């Protein structure tokens, strides 16, 4: 579902947002901090701050529907993965370094387009939760007429 090239892009430290919806089909969403893709490219773990998880977890537990967008500020390359919830757990202390590393890369990327690192300096990155999801579809999302086309 997610090939190695795309997995590398997802894990390089890009802007990540996770979307859910409630029982009234009202959308919900939050900024996520980091993501990893398993070796088969079927499942992802998306990390987000507990502060953000509080408003998404009721949706996820109720219906399991999830959408995650990945975008690189410097060239606006972007994709979106649709999926279903597998499980939710608290992020382990040994994962903190990985989360911080990807998040720092994202701030570096923002800096390349003239946005000071200080802008994200107060964003909360810990404690975090790990959301495992099964990818069901991958879509191109780089701005332009091809945005929205399936990638796999």
């Amino acid at each position, binding site marked *: 579902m997610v090939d190695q090239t795309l997995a590398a892009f997802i894990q390089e430290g890009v*802007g990540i*947002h*996770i*979307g*859910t*919806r409630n029982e*009234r*089909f*009202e*959308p*919900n*969403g*939050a*900024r996520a901090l980091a993501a990893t893709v398993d070796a088969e490219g079927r499942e992802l773990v998306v990390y*987000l*701050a507990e*502060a*953000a998880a*509080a408003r998404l977890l009721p949706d996820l537990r109720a*219906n399991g*529907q*999830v*959408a*995650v*967008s990945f*975008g690189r*500020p*410097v*060239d*606006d*390359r*972007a994709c*979106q993965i*649709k999926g279903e919830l597998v499980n939710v757990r608290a992020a382990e202390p040994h994962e903190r370094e990985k989360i911080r590393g990807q998040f720092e890369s994202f701030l570096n990327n923002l800096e390349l*387009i*003239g*946005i*000071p690192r*200080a*802008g*994200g*300096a*107060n*964003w*909360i990155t810990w404690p975090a939760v790990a959301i495992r999801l099964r990818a069901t579809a991958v*879509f191109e*999302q*780089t*701005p*332009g*007429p*091809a*945005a*929205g086309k399936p990638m796999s």
Partner: protein
Amino acid sequence: MNVTLESLATCFQGLLPAQLFTCSLEGVPNAAYLSHVDYVDPTHVALSFQFFNKSRRNIAENPHALVNVLDPDTGQGWLLRLLFERSETEGPLFDRMALRIEAIASYCGLKGIFKLRAADVYKVVSIEPSPEEQGGQPLTEQSRTPEPHAIFTMKAMQDLTERIQRADSLETLVDSILAGLDEDFGFRHSTILVPTDEEGVLVTIGSRGYAENGVGAEVRFGEGIAGMVAEARKPIRISGLMRGMLYALAMHREAGHLGISPRLRIPLPGLANPESQLGIPLLVRGELVAVLCLESEVQYRFHEDDKVSIELLGNYLAIAIQNMQLQERMADVQAPQVAERPQSAVPVASAVGKPRREIVYHVADECVVVDGEYLIRSLPARILWRLLTAFADCGRDEFTNRELRLDKSLNLPEYKDNLESRLLLLRRRLEQKCPDIRLVPRARGRFGLELACDIGLKTMP
């Protein structure tokens, strides 16, 4: 928390990417990046609709949306819960959003590749701070380029007015306006362009704050910020230009893959990395007198208040420029004709030790080339050629605007020929590219041709 939409004005400048969350009728959520969120009124925002993407299809069947915007000053994230109300395909809101998209695209040389299909207007149901995106101290003082903030005080207006009152020619007026915008208001980088005798073309007649003054640089209507302002006859304000350009270039790459080719263009001189631009049409009773462009390397330099104030100021500047053009023209009527001197009065190509300039007039292209380097084209080129040949043939070194107006060979427009603007442009181009040849004002409507070089004249078909 009671937060008003107006208090989030800086979030709507497009400096930082926004995120749009929607949901389909089947209950599948969607998360997508947004190029721009526009403030409409205290209870509404507008999102640009450029492509029939999944977000747009979702909204057509389920009007609920969530937008995550960031305050570029503090880094604080905000969640706006929205309800779709209507799509606008014309009117002031649509025009403003379409112009912004086209201006950025045009600046990148990609005009026409993407267009706004509609401005989608949403009611803002609630505004909440995003708890994971906590803000800090405003970044303005910490990490932005220090630049004095423009203050439209009565004192600044009075100072600019006095400068304008003192100006006694179009040249000093243009310089006074640009100097006033810099010194009285803090707008350091500015350009004034005027329409040429060629339909749909603007030419730069003055600039301030650049290494190269760029006088003579032309731009077609619809190209770049100045061209877009001239075409639309409406002001354009852009912040976060760099991010907008990246977005446009990303679209271009995608479009290129689909076989759409952009039209290449040569950019106007300006800042290497502009972040904010403001273009204002200078109009008098609907007639485009000039275009004023301001730019800055600061991301959020021109605020909405600045645009409104500059628009008001623009009306005054337009009248001042047009008034000066009319005054100079009226003065021509009273200026006596200059008698032609005998050829021997001013020797041509005789002084020892002077450099020699080979000047070629290309008839078909109507352009003048000096020592193999392009100087100027169109009407200013025809004027220069007439002056130089009069000098070479009869030794004349003084001319009046009036005789140029009466000279049918120059083919000036009967009505509003803007001769003074053309002479100013010619004078500045000579100063920049060929300072050995000078046009020196001697009285209103009269000027001298002063040569510090020998000249060789040649025409080419």
